[in-house]
């Protein structure tokens, strides 16, 4: 029982740390958002943005925040599309990415206490 409680406490502590980290990442994502557009996806901002959303995609669901994981995954796919580049769909991908980022930031803003599974 003590082990069970300890495990629950550890999970809750990890989830809290994840939320703190996600909020920090959201601040950086918001900073990168206009840079990606300014650089037309050709600079370092898109690479950094992709790394951040990839991290959230992989980790959020593990801590029970499935919607954040899905939202980050959508943004990651759009980053990949932009990085692949070279076709006529690229201009619209910027708009789609901006929309996906806006949605993701809103989801992260709503994160609060660790969810119950």
């Amino acid at each position, binding site marked *: 029982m003590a082990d069970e409680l300890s*495990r629950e406490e*550890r*999970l809750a502590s*990890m989830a809290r*740390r*994840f939320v703190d*980290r996600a909020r920090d990442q959201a601040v950086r994502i918001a900073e990168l958002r206009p840079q990606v557009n300014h650089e037309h996806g050709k600079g370092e901002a898109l690479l950094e943005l992709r*790394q951040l959303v*990839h*991290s959230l*995609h*992989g*980790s*959020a*669901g*593990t*801590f029970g925040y*499935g919607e954040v*994981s899905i939202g980050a*995954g959508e943004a*990651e796919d759009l980053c990949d599309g932009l990085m692949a580049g070279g076709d006529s769909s690229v201009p619209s991908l910027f708009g789609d990415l901006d929309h996906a980022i806006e949605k993701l930031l809103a989801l992260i803003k709503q994160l609060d206490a660790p969810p119950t*599974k």
Partner: protein
Amino acid sequence: MSDVVLERILYVDDEPDIQEIVGMALELMGDVEIKTCGSGREALALADSFRPNLIMLDVMMPEMDGPATLDALRRHPEHASIPVVFVTAKANTRELQRFIELGAVDVIAKPLDPMKLGDQVKKIWAATHGG
């Protein structure tokens, strides 16, 4: 083949949060020693000292990613036969096929479920070692 006991697992992921939760999840398996690290290079060093029976590799890591780490392991005579499982958030059918062709014994999709991960690993180990 079936008498090979899973004693040591090395989990490699550049996300410290994921390392920690996976470490805790795999502890639930019981008599299995778990080590985690954050890069392919650390994994290669730990393969020497820790001698894992199974290595779980995040696919997307900076500098040396999962496939590059697997390739380096396969080139090392003492580590070439260690079963490797890829862990990835991009587990579509095409990628899965590519990872198996690279030499992974299986692929586990992210997000990971900490309550099920141990059973997933046990099943993979059983399939790899005939029971």
